[in-house]
Structures are given as structure tokens and as C-alpha cells.
């Protein structure tokens, strides 16, 4: 039998043996240790964890001699997910063990390797390990949990651990969201406003930003840096502070109403009536968001080659023509793709909705949502105020599908992604 096949089979049989066969004793010992630990401690652990994940607990909450006894479905589910992640790591180690045995079986020379060499050779993995652990537990693990909740009955007031056990309910929550009147009415209403909001917010900030950039970068304007520093301020001031400030300004007794009254107009319930509240949201978002586009477009404008304008002058182009055929197309070409990213951002722009009016005013026809709530702020209310976790999870999945497809498309257009193609 070929040497490499033999080493592979040995490692397949038990981690590390192939490495011993290849005379790589330290590496072999490490692999073998992983397998021994897994066999001794892992098997009972995985058995219990998977049982927890599948059943979500079997012991109902009750008292024995005055002491509470129960299975906590939520903990069982989380422990189950962690066990699956650890299992995945072990499987990866197992596969790498087999490949490693095969790769090193036919080594010709047995050069003495120093620790330094080993560290340098495994540099990518050593460096990636901490980031990978972080991503696994802080990004991946919570997301798996959030998705699984959509398939359970986790909700107040009757299905909250530890008082009650959770149950897997399949696709029932999805059916309820689309079919059950109380849920579907709210969902469609909020969804439509979310889309309208995202479009309005994106278009207004983009074009006001364009207008400001053209204004400041016009040749007639002196002290460009001064003007730019003023206009960029809303982008520089911490967002939650400006939002709280603007909320106070537009509130009933706030200064906006005082000023209206001073010029003889009526006070308006800016944040307490649906129409005005939506109007204020778009307005405030413009105040916050336009400077960002202004800054980006300014940098595009200053990078347009002067030669283009010079040759246009030679051809006798007027100022309007130069603007129409050089300036505008250059700026739009460079920044239009940002419209997509901006749409995705506004679709989930929780801060402005939450800080300005908290989704209000309340809409009595909606299930736990207000007139200006968008999907993401509705999820917030469902999760942190109303304990309707199951529905929050379903809506999260829907938002995720929308945003992920939009973003996946726009990311295939980025430099990062394109150059990746060149490497491979």
C-alpha cells in the first residue's frame, strides 16, 4: 500500500496515529489528545446537549419539598447550539488530521524544525484563531439562536421559561404572520411604510447631499473648507445626541412650535400625529444624512480631472453643458451604487425611529406597533417590551432575507470582492 494512503487510514482510525507513522510525534500526540478528550468527556456531553436541543426539556416546573425543579428550555437550546459549534470544530480538526497525515507521508527529508518555523508556517491559522472564536460565539451563535426561535412557541404570557417548557412548532409562526388577521395586518402595514421610508430617506439625503456638494465646490465660492466644516457638523455630532435634541425641539412644548406661534401659525403635534411624524422623520434624516453624501461627493468632485474641463472649454462648451455632460455624470457614476447600501441602511435605521418618536403615535389597529414603526423597531418592541419572541424571530428572518440579498448584490460590486476574483 502507498505510504500516504496508509497514513491516511491510520489517522482515519484514530486521530494522530498517522502522524506517529510519519514520525511527527508532537503533532500526533496533540491530535491523539483531542480524540481522547472527546471520547471520554465529549460523548456524554454531546448526548445530553443534543437531547436538550431536540426535546427542549421534559421536566415541567414543579416543586419538590418546597424546591423548584424544572428544565429550562432556553438554556437547553443555547447549550445545544454551543455543543453543535464545538462538534463542528472537532470535525474540522478530524478532517485536517487526515489531510495532514496524507500530506506529510511522503516527506523526503527530515529537517529539524524550530518552533519559530512552525509558528511562521501556521501563521494564518494562529492569527485567525482568536477572531474566529469571537465571530463564532458573538456573531454566529446568537444568530443561530435567533433563527431557531422562529420555530418555537417562545412568547408571553404562557410560553416563557422557566415556568413553561418551550415546544418546537414547525412553520406555524410563519403561517400565523401571513394568515392570522391580527399579525398579517400589522406586518403588511409596517412593511409598506418601511419600504416607503427607506426610499424617501435614501433619495432625499442623496440629492440634498449632491446639491450641497455642488454648492460648496462651485468655483464662485470662497473659503470652501470653512463651509464644508459647517455643513459636515450633523455627521460629526454623535447621532443619539442630535436625535434626542431634535426630538425635544419638535416636541409639543418645544421651540419649533414656539417659533411657529411667533409668526402667527398654529402649533403642530409634530411627533404625536401620524402625518407630521412621518414628515419630521424624513426631514430629520435629511439633516443627519445629507452631510455624509456631501462629503463623499465633494471628494469625487475634487478628483475630476481638470483636463476634461479644459478640453471642453476649447470646444466652446458653456457652463451648463460642462455641468450636464461632465460634472453630473462623473458624480452619479461614482456614487450611485451607494444608493443601494444607503437603502439597506435606512431599511434598518432603528436609531432614528426609536429616538425620535419611538415608532409613535400608537396605531390601535396594529399589534404592538405605531404609525411610524419600521420592521426593525417593531422587532424591538416585540422582543424587549412584549415578549413576542417567536414573531420577532420570524420578522427578523424576513428582514434578513431582504437585506442580505440586497447587500450580497452590492458587495459583489466592491473592490474587496472583485480583487478576490483576481487572486483565485
Amino acid at each position: 500500500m502507498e505510504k500516504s494512503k496508509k497514513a491516511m487510514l491510520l489517522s482515519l482510525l484514530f486521530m494522530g496515529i498517522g502522524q506517529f507513522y510519519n514520525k511527527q510525534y508532537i503533532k500526533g500526540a496533540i491530535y491523539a489528545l483531542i480524540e481522547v478528550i472527546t471520547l471520554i468527556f465529549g460523548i456524554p456531553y454531546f448526548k445530553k446537549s443534543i437531547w436538550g436541543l431536540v426535546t427542549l426539556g421534559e421536566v415541567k416546573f414543579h416543586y419538590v419539598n418546597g424546591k423548584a425543579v424544572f428544565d429550562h428550555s432556553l438554556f437547553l437550546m443555547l447549550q445545544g447550539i454551543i455543543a453543535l459549534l464545538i462538534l463542528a470544530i472537532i470535525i474540522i480538526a478530524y478532517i485536517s488530521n487526515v489531510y495532514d497525515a496524507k500530506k506529510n507521508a511522503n516527506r523526503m527529508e527530515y529537517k529539524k524544525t524550530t518552533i519559530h518555523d512552525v509558528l511562521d508556517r501556521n501563521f494564518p491559522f494562529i492569527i485567525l484563531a482568536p477572531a474566529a472564536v469571537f465571530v463564532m460565539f458573538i456573531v454566529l451563535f446568537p444568530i443561530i439562536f435567533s433563527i431557531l426561535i422562529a420555530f418555537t412557541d417562545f412568547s408571553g404570557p404562557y410560553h416563557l421559561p422557566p415556568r413553561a417548557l418551550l415546544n418546537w412548532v414547525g412553520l406555524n409562526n410563519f403561517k400565523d404572520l401571513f394568515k392570522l388577521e391580527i399579525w398579517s395586518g400589522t406586518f403588511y402595514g409596517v412593511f409598506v411604510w418601511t419600504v416607503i421610508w427607506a426610499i424617501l430617506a435614501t433619495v432625499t439625503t442623496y440629492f440634498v447631499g449632491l446639491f450641497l456638494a455642488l454648492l460648496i465646490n462651485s468655483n464662485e465660492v470662497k473659503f470652501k473648507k470653512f463651509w464644508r466644516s459647517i455643513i459636515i457638523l450633523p455627521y460629526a455630532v454623535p447621532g443619539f445626541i442630535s436625535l434626542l435634541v431634535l426630538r425635544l425641539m419638535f416636541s409639543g412644548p418645544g421651540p419649533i412650535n414656539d417659533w411657529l406661534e411667533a409668526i402667527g401659525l398654529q402649533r403642530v403635534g409634530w411627533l404625536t400625529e401620524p402625518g407630521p411624524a412621518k414628515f419630521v422623520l424624513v426631514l430629520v434624516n435629511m439633516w443627519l444624512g445629507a452631510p455624509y453624501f456631501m462629503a463623499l461627493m465633494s471628494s469625487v468632485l475634487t478628483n475630476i480631472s481638470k483636463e476634461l474641463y479644459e478640453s471642453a472649454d476649447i470646444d466652446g462648451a458653456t457652463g451648463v453643458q460642462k455641468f450636464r455632460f461632465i460634472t453630473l455624470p462623473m458624480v452619479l457614476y461614482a456614487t450611485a451604487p451607494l444608493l443601494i447600501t444607503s437603502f439597506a441602511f435606512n431599511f434598518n435605521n432603528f436609531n432614528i425611529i426609536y429616538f425620535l418618536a419611538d415608532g409613535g403615535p400608537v396605531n390601535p389597529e396594529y399589534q404592538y406597533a405605531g404609525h411610524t414603526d419600521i420592521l426593525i423597531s417593531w422587532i424591538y418592541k416585540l422582543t424587549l417590551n412584549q415578549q413576542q419572541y417567536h414573531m420577532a424571530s420570524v420578522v427578523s428572518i424576513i428582514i434578513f432575507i431582504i437585506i442580505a440579498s440586497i447587500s450580497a448584490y452590492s458587495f459583489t460590486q466592491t473592490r474587496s470582492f472583485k480583487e478576490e476574483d483576481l487572486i483565485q
Partner: protein
Amino acid sequence: MMSAPKVVIPTKKNKISIGRILGKIVLYAMLITSSIVVLVPILWIIGSSLNPGDSLYTSTMFPKNPTFIHYKELFTKTDFPIWYKNTLKIAFANMILSVILTTSSSYVFSRFKFKGKKQGLITILVLQMFPSFLAMTALYVLLMQINLLNTHLGLILVYAGGQIPYNTWLIKGYFDSIPKSLDEAARVDGASNFTTFTKIILPLARPIIVFIALTNFIGPWMDFIFPTLILRTAEKKTLAMGLFAMVTGQTNTKFTTFAAGAILVAVPITLLFVYLQKHIIAGLSSGAVKG
């Protein structure tokens, strides 16, 4: 149109026509109007912080008897200094940890080939777009199980971990634009991977590192939801939590004190931002689509 860049051609005489002067007036009128719209909320909150009273009803933009009493009250009557210290600590630790984690992983993704690299990158990037409110429940239980609930360390770890996917893409894009021949030259001279990374790549990537450091430093000053969930006791609070409670709680009677606090938070961050404008715009456009 007045906004088109004009090139002065030396042979022609620069005409001073009425139309041009009119255009200039309209231009400046619009600039000044925009500046006023931008500045009014800022001036209003500054004015409010100098008002003698406590409430929104009585305060005016230009108080007749300006006073600094609310700034003094912040330090004597509230936990403002503690919040400030906490936030500064969290922001600084998050900045350091995030920069280390993200630059190193971006370097690996930019310079090394391995199986499943591209798929892995995309999966992580797409997954982190999942709305995070339910994920907070999971993180809450996770932190509880490792005894990091109500600690700043728990908050820092979550911040630093959460930013990895997106920022790795951003920095990787920048690293990709640094010529590979530089690494190879170093390798020929016998440099290890680590030396190449710290001595060649990092110095060249300074603009994007400044950008990442800044955004990670500023993040904790703005975030309000997550700290509220995991920080329980008064002495652990952050600025955003403390200030938010001043104007939205049941007893929202500390309006002018809030104004003073808001200014003490906003001023340093705004100055930092304006000072580093160039890097920020560069960072934003490097993450954006290349035209």
C-alpha cells in the same frame, strides 16, 4: 449654471456681468441658509445648557442670564464623571482590541490562500446582517453563563467581536491595494510573516487603521440599547444610558442638565471627527463601491 467649475482662460477677459453677480448672491444665500439649518439645533442645545431653569418650557435659545450652573451640577449632583470614565474605558479598550483582531485577520484574508476562504468571508458578512435584537437575548444568556453580566469586559468583548465581519472586509480591501511585491521583497530578505505584517503592511495602511480605530472608539459613546440590557448597577452605567434617562424617564425634569451633558460629550467627539475628516472620507470611500 453657477455650480459648474469654471476654468479661467487667460486670453479672454474676465467679464463682470450682472448675471454673474446675481448668481453669486443666490449661491451664497443658499449656502448661508443651509448653514443656518445645520447650526440651529446645535446653537439651541448650547443655549439651553446655559439657561437658569430646569425645564424645556422655560428655556430659550439665547438666555438673558446665562449660567454655567448645570455644568457644575453635572459633576456634583449626577454620576456624570463616572459615566464619562466608564465610557472612555470601554471605548478605548474596544478600539485597541478591535484594531488588533481586525487588522490581523484582514492581513490573513488579504495575503494567504486557503480552502473555503471566499465562501467563509461571504457567509460571515451576510450572516452579520441578521437583525440583532433577538441575538441580544442569546448574548445575555451567554454572558450570564460565563459570569460577565454587568461587567464592562462583557460589553467590550461583544463590541469587539461584533465589528469583525464588516471591518475585516473594509481593511482587507485596503490591504489588497498594497502591492504584493513589497511583501515578497521582504520575504526574500528573510522576514517572517509577522515581521512583514508589522513592519510593512501596517505602516502603509495607516489611513484605514485610523478610520477603524476612530469608528470603534466612537461606537460605545453612541450605543444605548445593549448597555441597558447588560449593565445593571448605577456605577457601571455609560454616558448614553445616563443622558437618555435624563430626558425620557418618568421624571424628565432635567432638561437643561441633559443639554450640558450632551455638549460635554458632543464637543470632543465632534472635534475629533472634524480634525480627522480626511481619513474618515477616505475610509468611507474605500469601503464603498469603486467606480
